[in-house]
């Protein structure tokens, strides 16, 4: 098993190194799974406009993006969270100077099965549910059934963001954690599928993944505030309480192809693609 993993990573490393080094006209973009579709759409349009340039987009999670930026295997890291101090220190050790560019906003939807009668929750209730203090739907106005918690794995920026902003309510001294019984699923799609099939499940992901098979819960900051749906409009005007910025990280000032691509993502055309992939433009 270990042998397999090491071999695979070696092969990937060589493959990507060979790939990146082969051609000056190509860049590697890697990171957040939330942003893979967006990155892919940007890359396609960009390559259509600039034939001869090549942009490869892969996912793996925000943390994965940072580690490859630091180890020099990608040119742009996509991330749904800010870079950690630890990661900056590590990057500087390797002579890499991460620069942050905000390219879009995303609303984090909390989803339940459409059969679930619960349709609105406060941040406080969400925190209690996901830390395991509330374990039955009837405690938050639902039927008498056990809550199945769905979370992303720890390599997901969404996981980290949800923990810091919902479970810990932005308090840096808070020690709240996801309940140990929470199911850790490897992708947003896996959460979407499980919520669609499981009437007692609750999960969270970027609002781009909402479909008719899941119901997005209306969320309020506290009991006095209004309960809002995650829509593009509500994220722009700041009414929806769980929204976050999406970033691209590059090494130092953008140059050459990297600059061309970053400029494209912030252009009118690039930001229209943001809207089309169900995210919220920054411009």
């Amino acid at each position, binding site marked *: 098993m270990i042998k397999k993993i090491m071999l695979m990573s070696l092969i990937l490393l060589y493959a990507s190194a060979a790939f990146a080094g082969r051609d000056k006209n190509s860049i590697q973009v890697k990171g957040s799974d939330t942003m893979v579709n967006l990155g892919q759409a940007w890359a396609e349009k960009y390559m259509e406009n600039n034939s001869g340039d090549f942009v490869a987009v892969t996912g793996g999670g925000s943390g994965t993006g940072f580690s490859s930026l630091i180890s020099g295997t990608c040119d742009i890291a996509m991330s749904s969270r800010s870079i950690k101090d630890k990661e900056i220190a590590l990057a500087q050790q390797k002579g890499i100077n991460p620069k942050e560019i905000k390219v879009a906003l995303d609303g984090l939807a909390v989803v339940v099965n459409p059969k679930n009668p619960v349709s609105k929750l406060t941040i406080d209730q969400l925190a209690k549910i996901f830390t395991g203090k509330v374990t039955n739907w009837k405690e938050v106005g639902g039927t008498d059934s056990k809550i199945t918690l769905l979370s992303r794995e720890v390599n997901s920026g969404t996981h980290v963001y949800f923990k810091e902003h919902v479970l810990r309510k932005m308090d840096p001294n808070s020690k709240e954690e996801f309940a140990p019984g929470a199911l*850790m699923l490897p992708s947003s799609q896996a959460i979407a599928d499980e919520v669609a099939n499981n009437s007692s499940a609750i999960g969270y992901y970027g609002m781009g993944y909402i479909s008719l098979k899941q119901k997005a819960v209306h969320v309020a900051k506290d009991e006095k505030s209004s309960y809002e749906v995650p829509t593009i409009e509500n994220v722009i005007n700041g009414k929806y309480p769980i929204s976050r910025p999406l970033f691209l990280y590059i090494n130092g000032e953008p140059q050459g192809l990297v600059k061309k691509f970053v400029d494209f993502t912030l252009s009118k055309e690039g930001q229209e693609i943001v809207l089309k992939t169900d995210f919220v433009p920054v411009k």
Partner: protein
Amino acid sequence: MRKFKEFIIEKLVLISGLASIFFVILIFLFLLKEGLALFKFVNPFEFLSGKSWYPISEPPQLGILPLILGSFVVTIGAAVISIPIGVACALYISEIAPGKIKEALKGGIELLAAIPSVVLGFIGMVTLVPWVKSVFNLPTGLTALSGSIMLAFMAMPTIVSVAEDALYSVPKSYKEGALALGATHWQTIWRVMLPAASSGILAAVMLGIGRVIGETMAVMMITGNSAVIPKVLFSNLFGFAQPVRTMTATIAAEMGEAVVGSEHYFALFAIGIVLFVISFAINVTADLFLHREHKKV
């Protein structure tokens, strides 16, 4: 000239042979170097018996007891399912099945071994998980049981082919002797063939289990990955009907995130050492059984 050619070829073959051992040693040393570094931060006893796994918190909580137990639950489940079916299948193929059916079965088993584990995991996620959920009336189908069933499919080819080899290598005279003494076909199989091939069959079982405990992809997709210590209750089928997180899935899911040189990173390698030790022990046991069999025959 001919001798020289021969010499070169011989040495090349020798180097190729040594290379595999060399790589194993290198990998093991690397694993030790990265994994043992963890114990500067955490003491080994706390690491093995700690009950919480929160690797990215400050400070991280690195207890792998839930992960070890998770791996064991899934493996035991898979063994309980795959051993009886696998051994019976090997018996049928080697002793009972007529020519054509035998060939078809053997081909089928080989085909089963050729299915990539991601594919099995995916099939399990779409078909088995909802089924387990509704049959056992559980809050979720992403459980150790689903993982065990899927892994049983993966262990089966190994168990069947090694056990079949073991049965095949039982001397013909044993069987003929038993039949000549008036034993029925079933009595021959049960009282003579099985005991004679027992060490080979045990080796088959061990190799099958070794395959199960190291499996990652399918497990990660369908066991739910929650790091809790399985509760052994009647209501959850003695720990099987609940989500578990295995050691392999933890490494695969978190390796991408772990910052190189962090405690989390070293902890993942330390889990690697634990896994290495377990599968090494299993393989050595299997080898001992195989060896014993060769001496006897």
